[in-house]
């Protein structure tokens, strides 16, 4: 049997894939956080809850309305994103002129409300969401067994990341977003409707979280608390990558997933904490993050 540093190749590759899939979720979520933070300057503590709402919307949509996975992948981000638009328009905008810490507190409170409400109705144990038939089973690659759904998640998440990167870095709307992030007042003086841009940006960030939630539904138990545990790691990823760049958020997300996966192979005891160790080291050596811009 082929061995890599004393570990069977199949085990190594298995954990690497698992890490990449986790990393894809980190990338999607930290991307949304970075986009929202860039323009609104708010650390969106409701991001984990919005990811959870995505998974729940897929679950309940299937249970009560018969909406299948593929339709959910399209509809849920739109619905949850629209909900995000309402949150921005009627809650966040009212406190936009205050210290941005209030935005953090407000979104944290919202997250608790969403979670609490769903715990009240569904408990914390979590429900299973069936993997769509076409994505069941796996591929035998010879050196390892690759579950089809995980491969799909990786492809879909990366495609969404690239789509987001393209929208922000290569389109006119994205140029508005980048410029608004730097100096929104001047954008108003050019005739850009910045309040509308802010609302849409928040909605888009929330939709990204919901998209990740739908992708996650067949992989993890769908429970009201699935987001809060993930979000802590995602915040660490954001700190490591820095808020500066879209591509940075994607690369850091994937890299941290891989590092976590490989730690599971070589030193499983540290696998839950390794990302935080990386965060501490990065904070000491480069406080703005790997891809952050020096202030």
């Amino acid at each position, binding site marked *: 049997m082929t061995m890599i540093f004393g570990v069977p190749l199949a085990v190594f590759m298995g954990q690497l894939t698992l890490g990449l899939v986790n990393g894809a979720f980190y990338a999607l979520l930290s991307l949304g956080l970075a986009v929202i933070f860039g323009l609104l300057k708010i650390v969106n503590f409701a991001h984990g809850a919005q990811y959870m709402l995505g998974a729940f919307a897929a679950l309940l949509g299937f249970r009560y309305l018969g909406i299948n996975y593929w339709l959910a992948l399209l509809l849920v981000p739109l619905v949850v994103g629209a909900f995000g638009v309402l949150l921005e328009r009627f809650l966040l905008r009212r406190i936009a002129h205050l210290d941005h810490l209030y935005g953090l507190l407000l979104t944290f409170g919202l997250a608790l409300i969403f979670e609490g409400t769903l715990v009240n109705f569904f408990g914390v144990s979590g429900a299973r969401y069936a993997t769509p038939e076409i994505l069941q089973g796996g591929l035998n690659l010879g050196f390892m067994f690759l579950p089809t759904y995980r491969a799909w998640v990786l492809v879909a998440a990366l495609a969404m990341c690239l789509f987001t990167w393209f929208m922000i870095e290569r389109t*006119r709307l994205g*140029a*508005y977003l*980048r*410029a608004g*992030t*730097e*100096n929104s*007042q*001047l954008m*108003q*003086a*050019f*005739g*850009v*409707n*910045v309040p509308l841009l802010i609302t849409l940006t928040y909605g888009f960030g929330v939709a990204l979280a919901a998209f990740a939630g739908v992708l996650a539904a067949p992989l993890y138990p769908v429970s009201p608390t699935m987001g809060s545990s993930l979000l802590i790691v995602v915040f660490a990823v954001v700190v490591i990558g820095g808020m500066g760049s879209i591509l940075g958020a994607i690369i850091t997300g994937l890299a941290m997933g891989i590092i976590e996966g490989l730690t599971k192979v070589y030193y499983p005891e540290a696998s839950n904490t390794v990302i935080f160790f990386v965060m501490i080291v990065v904070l000491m050596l480069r406080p703005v993050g790997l891809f952050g811009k020096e202030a």
Partner: protein
Amino acid sequence: MMTAEAQAPIENMQNLEMLRVQDLHAFYGESHILHGVNFDVKRGELVTLLGRNGAGRSTTLKSIMNMVGRRTGSIVINGNETLTMKPHHIPRLGVGYCPEERGIFASLDVHENLLLPPTVRSGGMSLDEIYAMFPNLYERRRSQGTRLSGGEQQMLAMARILRTGARMLLLDEITEGLAPVIVQKLAEVLVQLKERGMTIVLVEQNFRFAAPLADRHFVMDHGQIVEEISAAQLPSRREHLNSMLGV
């Protein structure tokens, strides 16, 4: 019988007027910056706002763009009262603003910076015309906006509002810190823009730059216009003006 004939001159007067500021007060939080500013600018005219630092010239431009905390009084642009307008509606009346700090975006390249401000009216300059006016910008169109030299950044800040179809330009200290050869180039640009019928309000420290270009000068002090000097009056008032500006 007086209707048509008597009204015509009044309408003409209104058509001639691009900007009328009356009893404008502006506040940043608790501080009261402008104390009743009054002036008007005719279509196609180039006027300057002169004065020492802190006299309220930049704040006057920002107030016109609704970029200050609170405003009272009246600002009529092209016949529209704008005091209650949202900030992003004001440029759509055909106003282009070039801030003192230039406001070039670091995350955009030169070309993107140039294309950034949305078109507000038809009749703006085409990209070709703009690149012909500023050949340096064409050469450096793929550079990051803030990698340009100070002079090039100033050209870019001017160029990007020419594309939008704005008919009135509010230019804040465009010559500040630039080499004489660049200042000369900017003067040529302003002459060309004036020939195209642009209305220009110029906040300027460099009086020698502004003097030959302007039709009228407004001198500001302590948040008010304290004096109006036409180009014709300028030679006789020059010393008086120099002492007022502390040059």
